[in-house]
């Protein structure tokens, strides 16, 4: 009986050890849900409340160091210059992958680098836009109910740290390169692109987020 008990105990210990080893080497190692705070606050502060951008993200940890990531958000912008006004709103998404560059172990604290492909669809009005003509005189134009899809690529770098049990926080610096730089015939390109920022071929971005890992 004692021998049987010893064998069962040894088997249980072996199974536990095996299960722990499997957990360390399993491909899927958890899912995190992130809520951006940094960019939302930054956009609000910089624009005096005229631009609101909210975003959340989901990533999964695979094979200790790979983080496929899906980000989605919504932005509203009402911004003018020189009498003209852009008023628009739309959704955006980014899909990509991060790679943990420093720690390969079981730690949840990591430096991350990655790539993203982003896209945004928005409705916008451009009103009182200056039409330049030195000889015929300045005119003002209105473009109502415009729709447009823009896409861009990003190189991201950041970090994530575990602060308490499943709770994490971190930040990303983003280098964004706009791909859609031309307008179709009769189309007027927007002044602001949700998820990208003011329309420029090259743009920087910043996210500070809070996350929970399941």
């Amino acid at each position: 009986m004692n021998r049987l008990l010893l064998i069962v105990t040894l088997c249980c210990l072996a199974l536990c050890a095996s299960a722990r080893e499997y957990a360390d080497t399993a491909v899927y190692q958890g899912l995190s849900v992130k809520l951006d705070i940094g960019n939302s606050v930054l956009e609000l502060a910089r624009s005096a409340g005229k631009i609101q951008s909210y975003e959340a993200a989901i990533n999964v940890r695979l094979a200790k160091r790979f983080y496929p990531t899906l980000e989605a958000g919504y932005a509203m912008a009402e911004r003018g210059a020189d009498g003209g006004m852009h008023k628009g709103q739309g959704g955006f998404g980014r899909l990509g992958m991060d790679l943990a560059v420093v720690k390969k172990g079981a730690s949840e604290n990591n430096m991350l680098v990655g790539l993203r492909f982003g896209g945004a669809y928005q409705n916008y009005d451009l009103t009182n836009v200056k039409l330049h003509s030195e000889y015929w005189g300045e005119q003002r134009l209105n473009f109502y109910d415009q729709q447009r899809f823009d896409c861009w690529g990003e190189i991201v770098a950041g970090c994530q740290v575990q602060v308490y049990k499943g709770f994490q926080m971190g930040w990303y610096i983003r280098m964004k390169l706009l791909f859609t730089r031309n307008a179709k015939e009769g189309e007027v390109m927007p002044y602001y692109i949700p998820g990208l920022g003011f329309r420029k071929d090259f743009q920087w971005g910043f996210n500070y987020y809070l996350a929970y890992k399941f």
Partner: protein
Amino acid sequence: MQTKWYILICLIIGLAACEPETTCHQELDSAVQITLSADSITSAGDTAYYAQWDSVTVVGIGSDIGMQGKGVKVMGLELRPDTSLTAYLMLYHNQIDTLYIQHTPRQQFISMACGCAVYHTITAAWSSDPRVDSVSIINASVETVAQDNLCIYLHE
């Protein structure tokens, strides 16, 4: 620890640079470039080719701004941004000509500070002057980069 603060300050300054420009630095002017071509028979019976307006005065129909030039080889005229027909009264060689240019304007939004630039595609051009043999479209696209667009051929 100080290094981290420097990095943070640099990042904040860098992010502040993401604001859009409030002044326009982009070239927006587009003008149709017109040249003149004429064959002239000299007193010796030779054919001489000349290609300039010795003296020319131009006024856009619908505008009250006149332009004058002497020894002009290439004339740059702005097309109307709001309609598809632009006409200029031209006084040269002591006679008045009306040059008509039919075009398709297309507005391109540059930025809030710059507004829209207007580019054109010329679809037809003709003259009211019997001295003019034809007005030829050399390059239909009128953009900020200057290039010869029209050539006025004269009978002589």
